[in-house]
């Protein structure tokens, strides 16, 4: 059996340099038949830089398999954007597949889900505790062939400033919260609970993921994401 009639499509923000390595973790619960997974790698500007396909044969050996695929080799030709080698991974796979991304930093690793959908009929949000020790990145991807406009509104206290970001067709962009909203980062110790609301005014279908960098531990930084 090849690809199922209605494949599921997952999108991930991926990065390989200089902060993370990315590894795709896939499971196929309840899929005893042959499964084929098509992977399309796009750079930050939306150019297709690599394609891959993984096929798992039918039979018992496939049932309940768990697969790891290190993605850095697929990003060799990825250009730098915003100081990062990053882009979008699109996975087309049979229903019942499940994918997660393992982001591996120098001192820790975390698991990240696929991007949250942002479209004209679907807004999204991220929680964050703004502080000197924690910095947040919003990794945004564009699943469409048209340019996307991502509206990012920060809810912090009684204020709600907003910024917008253009996401190239099929591409990705990084939004640094400390850089976009510097006046909202507390000067002193402690943290302020805040939220980001993500929406779009464009026809594009976008996705977003939150990456937190925590520097509160001496001599090591840790990363976490939404899973």
């Amino acid at each position, binding site marked *: 059996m090849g690809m199922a009639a209605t494949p599921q499509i997952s999108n991930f923000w991926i990065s390989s340099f200089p902060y993370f*390595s990315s*590894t795709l*973790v*896939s*499971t*196929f*619960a*309840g*899929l*005893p038949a042959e499964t084929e997974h098509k992977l399309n790698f796009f750079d930050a500007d939306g150019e297709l830089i690599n394609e891959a396909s993984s096929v798992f044969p039918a039979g*018992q050996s496939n*049932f*309940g*398999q*768990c697969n*790891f695929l*290190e993605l*850095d080799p697929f990003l060799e030709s990825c250009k730098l954007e915003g100081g990062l080698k990053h882009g979008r991974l699109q996975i087309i796979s049979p*229903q*019942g597949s*499940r994918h*997660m991304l393992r982001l*591996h930093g120098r001192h*820790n*690793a*975390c*698991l*990240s*889900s696929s991007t*949250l959908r942002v479209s*004209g*009929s*679907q*807004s*999204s*949000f991220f*929680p964050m*505790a703004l502080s000197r020790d924690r910095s947040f990145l919003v990794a945004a991807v564009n699943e469409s062939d048209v340019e996307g406009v991502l509206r990012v509104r920060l*809810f912090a206290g009684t204020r709600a400033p907003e910024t917008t970001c253009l996401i190239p067709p099929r591409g990705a962009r990084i939004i640094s919260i400390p850089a976009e909203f510097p006046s909202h980062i507390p000067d002193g110790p402690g943290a302020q*609970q805040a*939220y*980001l*609301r993500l929406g779009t005014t464009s026809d594009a279908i976008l996705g977003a993921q*939150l990456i*937190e960098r*925590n520097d*509160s*531990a001496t001599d090591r930084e*840790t990363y*976490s*994401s*939404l*899973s």
Partner: protein
Amino acid sequence: MQTVSWLGFGICSSLTRTMVHFFPSAGGVSAPYQSSCQISVFSSAMEPKSALLDGVRLSQPDGIRLEEAFPALQPGGGGLFGVHIKIATNQPRVELQKSLCFIEVVNQFNSARFAPYLERAASAEPASPRGGAAIKDAFHTTTCVIVNGSDKNETVSLLASGIGNEPVRTAATREVPSGGVIEVDLDAAQLFTQAQPVEQSWGLVRSQSVFLNDNLSDQIGVFLVYRDCESKKPISVCAL
């Protein structure tokens, strides 16, 4: 649908606290209609408690630190507990199914933010198989948290791939009392004994795809918790 609800869990200890974040949303409706959020906490060790949050508005994200709303969760009184979150609105013709909710388990050096299990309407189409990846390596070990939000005891089986003539084996079976929350150490349950180690760039990894028995009630939340090998603190959580 004028209500939407999720089932999750939290951890309360001297070093760890839990927050619930929610985003009442009706898709394209941007008017800040009044909504409500009811949060309930429960475990076998305490009486169920609920709090109704006022001032919740459609399209405006909000959240609450559970230890503030539920003093019973102060360090020493909690541990692992279940969380039920329900968002509702009185507005007719407002569908809330595009609302979002995250639970954040916070310690000093890390936050594990995860999407709780979305409770489905009885009339909804069957969910796709509930499965995920259990991992054991130099960074992570995996546990399984089972939350029983139903009003009866439930038996939950965690299935995994087997060998030989037995393609599926039962990795762990636990009876979870109504309103109970348990955590299963998958390494101690010998989940990884049949998993071949695979060399990755960060070292050897043992992994096992796990999934749930089909006849499971929709009021059972099951979560894979990836804990730091040294500190045992949760790093990431994945709802099955």
